C-alpha cells in the first residue's frame, strides 16, 4: 500500500461503499485465506492523550491524517474509564511514562480496555504503549497483564553507559530497564500472515521494548540491524545481544480482539514505510463488526460565516501570541521536571505547531462542527496558554521559579491540542464524507 492508495481506499470506505479485503489491489496484504471476504470499513480510532502520554500521540494524529483516517477521537484517562471505548474500533497508545499511564487508567481503565479488546477491539501500543499490557507484577501495571511476553532489556545489574548517562535507564523495582540504543534502528518483518514476503524497515527507538514470546507466530518483526543514525547508549555488543533476533513488533490476541505492540515508534511521521506497515496491520485486525457510529449527530452545532471567522481568528490570535513567546524561550536552557519527565521549553511549540499547521485548512472548512460551547472553550484554553507562557517568560527574566505556570501550561497545551484536533477531525470527516458520498472512484491496482 501507498499513501495515495490509502487515500483512495478511504474515500471509498467513507462514502459507504461496501468493500472486502479481496477487492484490494492485487494481494494487498498478501493474504490468501477466506478472510479476504471480510468486510473492510472506515475505522473509528481513539488516541490516548491523558496522563502519562508524551507528545508522541501527536504523531499518530499526523500519520492517520496523512493516510486519510479522519474518524479520530482524543481520549483522556477519564474517557477510557467511562464508555469512550464502546464507540471505537481501535485504540492507539503512544509513548510516554508507562507507570504514569497505568496509574492514571487504574483498575477501572484496565478493565474497560480488557473488555474492549476481548470484544474484538484492536489495541495499537507503541513504546510505553507496548510496555503497558505486558505481564508485570509491578503496582499499577499488574492491572493489565494482557500479553505474555518478556522484555529483554531488564537487568539487575546496570550496564555501563556509553553516552547520555542521564537517559539510558529507568528503575523497575529492584531491577533496571535499560535502553541500549536511541534513534534509528532496522527491523525485519517476519512475513507471517497477514503479511507476505519479509521486508526490512527502519523506525526510531526511544525506549521501547525488545520482547521475547513463546509463540513465534505472534512475531511480526524482529530487530535485525543498526543504521548509521543509531546512537549507542551501551556497548555495541550488549546492544546487539539485547535487541537482535528479539521481537520488535508482536501481534497478541485476547478474546476476539488483537494487540499490536511496537517497540520502535512506527508512528513517527518521518518513517513512511513504517507508518504504512502499521496501517496495514491495523486494517487487517480491525474488529469484525465495527462499533456503532456516533458523533456527527444533532448535538453538533455548525459554525459558518462571520461566527466561524471570529472563532478561528480568536483562536489564531492566542496561538500566535503563545507561539511568539515559545519561540523565544526554546533556545534557552529552561526546563522543568513534572512528574517523572523533563520538559524542555522547546516542547511548548510542539503542541502549538500541531494546531498551527492545520489552521489554514481549518479556515477553509465550512461548516466547522463543534459541540455546544466547544469553540468558546477552545479559545479560552488557548488564552490560558498565552497567560501561562507569558508568566514563564516574566519569571525567567526575573530568575524566579517557573514550575507552577509550566505545570499549568503543559496541562493546557495537551488539552487545547486534543480539543482542537477533535473539532478539526470531526469537521474534516464531515467534509470528506460529504465530498465523497456521490459517485464511485476508480480503484487502480
Amino acid at each position, binding site marked *: 500500500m501507498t499513501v495515495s492508495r490509502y487515500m483512495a481506499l478511504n474515500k471509498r470506505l467513507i462514502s459507504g461503499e461496501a468493500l472486502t479485503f479481496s477487492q484490494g489491489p492485487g494481494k494487498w496484504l498478501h493474504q490468501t485465506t477466506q478472510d479476504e471476504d471480510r468486510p473492510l470499513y472506515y475505522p473509528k480510532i481513539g488516541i490516548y492523550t491523558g496522563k502519562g502520554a508524551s507528545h508522541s500521540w501527536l504523531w499518530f494524529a499526523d500519520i492517520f491524517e496523512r493516510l486519510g483516517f479522519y474518524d479520530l477521537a482524543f481520549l483522556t484517562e477519564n474517557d477510557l474509564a467511562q464508555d469512550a471505548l464502546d464507540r471505537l474500533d481501535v485504540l492507539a497508545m503512544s509513548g510516554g511514562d508507562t507507570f504514569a499511564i497505568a496509574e492514571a487508567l487504574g483498575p477501572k481503565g484496565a478493565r474497560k480496555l480488557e473488555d474492549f479488546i476481548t470484544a474484538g477491539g484492536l489495541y495499537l501500543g507503541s513504546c510505553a504503549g507496548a510496555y503497558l499490557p505486558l505481564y508485570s507484577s509491578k503496582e499499577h501495571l499488574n492491572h493489565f497483564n494482557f500479553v505474555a511476553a518478556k522484555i529483554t532489556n531488564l537487568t539487575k545489574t546496570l550496564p555501563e553507559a556509553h553516552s547520555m548517562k542521564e*537517559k539510558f535507564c529507568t528503575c523497575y523495582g529492584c531491577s533496571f530497564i535499560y535502553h541500549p540504543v536511541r534513534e534509528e534502528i532496522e527491523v525485519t518483518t517476519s512475513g507471517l500472515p497477514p503479511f507476505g514476503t519479509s521486508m526490512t524497515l527502519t523506525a526510531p527507538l526511544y525506549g521501547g521494548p525488545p520482547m521475547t514470546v513463546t509463540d513465534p507466530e505472534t512475531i511480526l518483526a524482529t530487530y535485525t540491524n543498526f543504521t548509521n543514525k543509531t546512537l549507542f547508549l551501551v556497548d555495541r555488543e550488549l546492544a546487539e545481544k539485547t535487541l537482535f533476533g528479539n521481537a520488535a513488533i508482536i501481534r497478541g490476541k485476547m478474546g476476539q480482539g488483537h494487540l499490536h505492540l511496537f517497540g520502535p515508534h512506527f508512528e513517527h511521521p518521518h518513517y513512511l514505510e513504517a507508518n504504512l506497515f502499521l496501517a496495514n496491520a491495523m486494517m487487517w485486525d480491525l474488529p469484525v463488526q465495527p462499533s456503532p457510529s456516533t458523533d456527527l449527530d444533532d448535538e453538533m452545532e455548525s459554525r459558518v460565516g462571520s461566527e466561524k471567522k471570529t472563532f478561528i481568528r480568536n483562536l489564531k490570535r492566542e496561538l500566535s501570541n503563545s507561539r511568539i513567546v515559545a519561540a523565544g524561550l526554546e*533556545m534557552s536552557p529552561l526546563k522543568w521536571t513534572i512528574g517523572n519527565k523533563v520538559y524542555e521549553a522547546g516542547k511548548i511549540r510542539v503542541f502549538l505547531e500541531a494546531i498551527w499547521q492545520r489552521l489554514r485548512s481549518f479556515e477553509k472548512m465550512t461548516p466547522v462542527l463543534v459541540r455546544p460551547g466547544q469553540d468558546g472553550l477552545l479559545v479560552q484554553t488557548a488564552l490560558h496558554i498565552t497567560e501561562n507562557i507569558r508568566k514563564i517568560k516574566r519569571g525567567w527574566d526575573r530568575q524566579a521559579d517557573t514550575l507552577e505556570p509550566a505545570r499549568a501550561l503543559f496541562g493546557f497545551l495537551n488539552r487545547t491540542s486534543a480539543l482542537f484536533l477533535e473539532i478539526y477531525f470531526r469537521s474534516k470527516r464531515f467534509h470528506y464524507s460529504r465530498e465523497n458520498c456521490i459517485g464511485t472512484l476508480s480503484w487502480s491496482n
Partner: protein
Amino acid sequence: MGLCEQDTIFRYGGFFMGIQIDALKCIACMACELACGYHRDDAFALLSSCIVPYRGREKKNYVGVILKEEDSLVAARPEGIEINRIGEEQDPEKEADASAKPMLLRESCDLCDDQDDGPLCIVFCPTGAISMT
C-alpha cells in the same frame, strides 16, 4: 556545565568536526539563521533554524550565537562558550527522562550534509564569525 574554552565538537559520520563560532566577530545580521532556516525548510523561514544570534539584550548590546546540537545548546557568548545539555535532570535525586521523544521542530546541526559547499551558515556569514574546525 559552565563557561569553558572548549570548541563545539560533535560526531559526524565517524569523524569529529566542529562548528566554531567567534561571538565577537558577529554583527548580529541573522544571515546564518536565515540560511539554516532555508536548509531546513527549502524556503525562507527562521523557525526551524538551529543557529540563532541571541538578540534579547538589545539595550545592553549583549550579543552571542546559540547553536543547537544533538544533545546540547551551545551558547557562543562574547566571554566564552557555554554548553547546556538538553533533557538533563536538574534534580540529581530524581531520575532523568530515559525515553525522551524528539520534538522535530528545531533539529540539531547536521553541517548541511546535503550541500556541496558545506554549512550554509558559514557560506553566508559576512564576517567569518562562523567557521569549521
